[in-house]
């Protein structure tokens, strides 16, 4: 038996009694970053395959949502910073060993690619916005430039989408100090989850029957891959070191068992998988808007629970008996 008790006061906010420095902002940033990666990947792929006419929503109206998602994600990241005035410091250096530094520079590269990809879709996808931009000489030239180099932009878009999607997982998996995160499965899981979220967005926005059918099929495959990767991640942890086994136990009867199974796996993965299968079979069409909403919810919940469980998993297990209320008595 080993019992380790703190005998002096330790009540560092966010650190004690257990690590809780990242709340909703980082999960939101990871979700929106993954969604951006998924949108960029599909939009670029359609251009490169020359299938714009078959997929009108993806080719004309989807790219602008990557801009919206990434901007909101950056805002969430900014809100998380506890020393906000120094945010510009991200761009005064490149730290090769820091995934967060890689991420900040990848985001800087992703922005112009998204803007160029979006610019070429404005005239057809958002005519009012397209006309507004066209009124300005620079805007008009910009749209023409983007359309002339559409294939090159899509090539860059495809590469950066994969980098961005993987990065959102590597950001967490690189933290060897947090056993739940320290697995190579997080990167492909977050990339696939981002693609699934983007596919769900297409299902919510498209009015083309062919596009809906194709993206329902794509999403079913992506959800199945997500479930497989989650299973592999848990097997990886459950057969790992002592701290990883303890981390995996959080979802098998531990404090995160109910949130993980009841609020993530069942409503965010299993139910949309069944609903989309029914949709594909042509039954229960009234549910066709429910499944993409659940997929988007599941994609966010996956990040939220992953961030929470990673912070709850640790190498140390002190019993911290300090009651912060006692400090008030001294004041």
């Amino acid at each position, binding site marked *: *038996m080993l019992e380790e008790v703190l005998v002096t006061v330790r009540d560092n*906010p966010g*650190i004690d009694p257990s690590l809780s420095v990242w709340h909703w902002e980082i999960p939101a940033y990871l979700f929106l970053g993954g969604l951006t990666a998924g949108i960029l990947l599909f939009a670029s792929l359609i251009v490169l395959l020359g299938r714009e006419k078959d997929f009108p929503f993806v080719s004309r109206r989807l790219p602008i949502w990557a801009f919206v998602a990434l901007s909101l994600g950056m805002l969430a990241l900014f809100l998380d*910073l506890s*020393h*906000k005035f120094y945010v510009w410091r991200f761009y005064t250096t490149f730290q090769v060993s*820091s995934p*967060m530094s890689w991420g900040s520079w990848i985001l800087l590269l992703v922005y112009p690619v998204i803007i160029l990809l979006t610019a070429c879709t404005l005239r057809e996808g958002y005519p009012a916005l397209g006309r507004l931009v066209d009124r300005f000489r620079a805007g008009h030239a910009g749209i023409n430039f983007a359309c002339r180099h559409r294939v090159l932009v899509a090539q860059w878009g495809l590469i950066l989408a994969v980098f961005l999607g993987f990065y959102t997982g590597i950001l967490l998996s690189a*933290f060897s100090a947090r056993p739940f995160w320290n697995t190579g499965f997080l990167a492909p899981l977050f990339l696939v989850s981002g693609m699934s979220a983007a596919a769900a967005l297409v299902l919510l926005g498209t009015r083309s029957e062919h596009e809906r059918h194709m993206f329902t099929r794509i999403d079913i495959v992506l959800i199945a891959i997500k479930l497989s990767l989650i299973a592999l991640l848990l097997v990886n942890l459950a057969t790992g070191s002592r701290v990883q086994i303890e981390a995996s136990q959080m979802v098998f009867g531990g404090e995160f068992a109910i949130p993980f199974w009841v609020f993530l796996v069942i409503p965010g993965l299993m139910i949309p998988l069944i609903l989309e299968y029914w949709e594909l079979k042509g039954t229960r069409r009234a549910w066709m808007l429910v499944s993409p909403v659940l997929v988007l919810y599941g994609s966010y919940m996956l990040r939220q629970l992953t961030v929470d469980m990673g912070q709850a998993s*640790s190498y140390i297990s002190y019993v911290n008996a300090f009651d912060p209320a006692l400090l008030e008595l001294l004041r």
Partner: protein
Amino acid sequence: MKVYAMVIDTNLCIGCGDCVVACKTENKLPAGLNRDWVVEATRGRYPDLTTEFRSERCNHCTHATCVHACPTGATYTWQNSNIVLVEPSKCTGCKACIAACPYDARLIMTPDGYIDKCTFCHHRVEKGQDPACVSACPTHCMHFGLLSDAQSTVSRLLATRPHKALLEETGNEPQVYYLT
């Protein structure tokens, strides 16, 4: 590279917490924030129990994952040594270093928001003095010095006494040692 180490004799430590008070006073830490702390570890089964007190802090690892995780270079090592410091004017408060530390030895400075930690009192070390916690210890169970100097007290203690470091399995190469 100069390797500074702290060596703490758990047979002499009585868990009084003077090291914690000395640190807070020397470094003017706000109420509620601590750069060091004392753990009482009890091992065995009643009535065969052994207890040790450990004064803990940042381990100033020679393979510090917090330094690698920092995206802005705000976390750095001092003067080609293993002493890990934070430069507040470069810190964004992203908290990557906090997540990267297996010892949970970092803290968020209030109200400013930058990340703070034990500095091994480098401002005293550069004057040839010991860190405040070492100087204040009433049982003289704490020692500080250069591990890269074979004649230093810390080198001789580690050469002659059984010892351990915390969480060596993480590969961080911690430089706070406990004589057992």
